[in-house]
């Protein structure tokens, strides 16, 4: 029998037509500090609210100690939540805020007193019991909110970005205190945040979520050192994400150079994405060690290290972090350890849609009608449409555009940007471009007829 306190199975949730959580499977070990990490709108708070019982899942189930808690209302779940903006009761003082849950459970007066004083001591707020909560600072209010939750001795403590409203210094202090509290109490913590550094500092396990799907589950070091895809690599820490090709086992090519690596099993000559952390590119003066050369483009002091951008001899831009600065304009010799090259399977190699031929030289997909060569296809026939990432033109106006969209996600790949565009039809199109766009920019989308490739739909039963 595995000791899972929470087991989430095939959980899905939609708001209107938008799927915010898609087939989430996740278990939480007893006593663990687990963090749900992702950008805003990724569904992490929705997941937490479903565990708390404020939202009902559309599909799937949440098991607490092996029992489905779907039908149990929030006030009967043995869980407590620390809310983002504290949500203290303004009409009650510190003591009564903390005693609120115990009083509802008809706990004897002296027991309440004992427990309230104990948690006040734990959160270092012992002298504040008579204070009006609105006279407290943000950090103090958050301590009271935590005290109010843990005084009920929940099986699981849910924390919804509890430190987001605090300033940086206070946040760092509270992180340490939270970690300490978790150790002392032995309660399972489920923590939601969009702050990757916070997640790395606090967690036993990190669950990276994006667009309603779990991207990766692992320990902080796993997630940092071995991101499974470009999103995780980009979201957690700084990284150089580059297009590469796995030549054979333990040998990979990127930035037009070949490197030894430790990855195997991708096959030969397979396109991959490669991640190299900026602190893993080393400077050397030994020509024998040098794998490639570059010219330093910029150098900025970041407090502990210097952050430099270099242009490689093959025309790629890389970010490097080092304790020693190298003057701008100088030629440097660089190398990367095989261990520090993280090779990832490519999630996609081209845009692919199901379209329909709507007439001679016309095909419909992405909710719009495009011109292309339809030779060999009948009118009304369903077809597979393929477009290479670099063949999509982005315009800053819609005059010549065939359809429009917004920039949703930007990934810098060393010598070009890989953009995710959300079209008006709600679908996505991926674009490789050298132009600089900002997130949420409005773009016109144009594709030349010769760049649209049609294929017969391969039926599943054939």
């Amino acid at each position, binding site marked *: 029998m595995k000791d899972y306190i929470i087991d989430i199975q095939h959980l899905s949730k939609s708001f209107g037509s938008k799927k915010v959580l898609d087939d989430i499977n996740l278990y939480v070990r007893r006593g663990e500090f687990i963090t749900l990490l992702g950008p805003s709108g990724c569904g992490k708070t929705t997941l937490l609210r479903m565990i*708390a*019982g*404020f939202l009902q899942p559309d599909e799937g189930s949440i098991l607490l100690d092996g029992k489905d808690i779907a039908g149990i*209302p*929030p*006030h*009967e779940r043995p*869980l*407590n*939540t620390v*809310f*983002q*903006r*504290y*949500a*203290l*009761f*303004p*009409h009650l003082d510190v003591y009564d805020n903390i005693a*609120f*849950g115990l009083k*509802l*459970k008809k706990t004897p007066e002296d027991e309440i007193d004992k427990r309230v004083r104990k948690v006040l001591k734990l959160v270092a707020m012992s002298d504040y019991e008579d204070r*009006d909560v*609105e006279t407290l600072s943000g950090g103090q209010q958050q301590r009271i909110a935590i005290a*109010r*939750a843990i005084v*009920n001795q929940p099986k699981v403590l849910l924390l919804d970005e509890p430190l987001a409203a605090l300033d940086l210094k206070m946040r760092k202090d509270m992180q340490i205190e939270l970690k300490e509290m978790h150790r002392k109490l032995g309660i399972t913590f489920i923590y939601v945040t969009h702050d990757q550094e916070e997640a790395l500092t606090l967690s036993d396990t990190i669950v990276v979520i994006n667009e309603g799907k779990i991207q990766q589950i692992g320990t902080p070091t796993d997630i940092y050192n071995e991101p499974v895809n470009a999103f995780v690599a980009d979201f957690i820490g700084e990284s150089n994400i580059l297009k590469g090709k796995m030549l054979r086992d333990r040998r990979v090519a990127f930035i037009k150079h070949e490197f030894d690596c430790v990855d195997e099993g991708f096959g030969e000559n397979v396109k991959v994405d490669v991640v190299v952390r900026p602190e893993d590119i080393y400077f050397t003066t030994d020509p024998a060690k040098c794998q490639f050369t570059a010219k330093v483009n910029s150098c900025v002091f970041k407090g502990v290290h210097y952050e430099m951008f270099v242009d490689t001899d093959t025309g790629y831009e890389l970010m490097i972090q080092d304790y020693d600065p190298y003057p701008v304009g100088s030629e440097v010799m660089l190398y990367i350890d095989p261990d520090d090259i993280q090779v990832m399977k490519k999630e996609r190699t081209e845009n692919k849609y199901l379209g329909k031929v709507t007439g001679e030289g016309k095909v419909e997909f992405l909710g719009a009608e495009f011109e292309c060569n339809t030779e060999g296809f009948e009118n009304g026939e369903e077809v597979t449409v393929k477009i290479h990432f670099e063949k999509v033109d982005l315009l800053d106006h819609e005059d010549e555009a065939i359809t429009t969209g917004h920039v949703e996600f930007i990934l810098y790949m060393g010598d070009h940007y890989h953009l995710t565009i959300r079209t008006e039809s709600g679908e996505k199109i991926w674009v490789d471009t050298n132009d600089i766009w900002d997130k949420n920019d409005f773009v016109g989308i144009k594709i030349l007829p010769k760049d649209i490739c049609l294929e017969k739909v391969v039926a599943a039963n054939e």
Partner: protein
Amino acid sequence: MKGKKLLAKLYIGLVLVILYAPIIFIAVFSFTEAKSLGNWTGFSFNLYKNLFNGSMQNSSGLMSAVENTLLIALIASVVATLLGTVAAIGIYNLKGRKKDVMNFLNNIPMINPDIITGVSLFLLFVFLHISQGYTTVVLAHITFCTPYVVLNVMPKLSQLNPNIYEAALDLGATPMQALRKVLVPALRPGMISGFILSFTMSLDDFAVTFFTRGTIGLDTLSTYIYADARKGGLTPELKPLMTILFLLILVVLLVINIRQSKNLNKK
């Protein structure tokens, strides 16, 4: 410079005199015995005595009108406060367009002229065959008071931490307990101001009452005074009554203002 300041002060003085002259006029003349308005026949408390010992003409009619007024105002404003608070919570939790529409619908009765509210309620009651009297007046007053409560509670809701209700559920409160122990206390200031506003609106309403009281001879203070004045001059004892009412409302307003400024100072 000095001349300008003096002018400004004079102007304010003039405005205040125009505003308060009628009330002061009634208050001053409540302390004389003269039957006709504007005659000063020496200082006397007699009108006050008559008012309270019941020796004025139709004293019982006046007293029942006062009773009706207060009771109707009390019932209407209590019910309106409950209805309005629940409605405000409901509207607040609506999303987007629906919320705007409901807010708009809530505002219309407030800008609607009283006379139209009165006539349309009258027609509605007739149409529904509800015999007019005490009940219809109370219903009518609840109708026009409720939007004011919504209007007073809404800002308190917006100031509220949106998670506060969920926090109560999370700590083990049933939805009913969460409403009682957390939401209502947090909304109380808005509910109280909504209640007071409803109470005063109900107290001084004439048009709506006039159209919904039916023919059973139900009088509130405003309809009583109106009828009395039409019958051939205002009964002199009404002057002290109005003075007392004015002072009462003044005291209530002062108390509310002092309480509010105290609350502000505390924060």
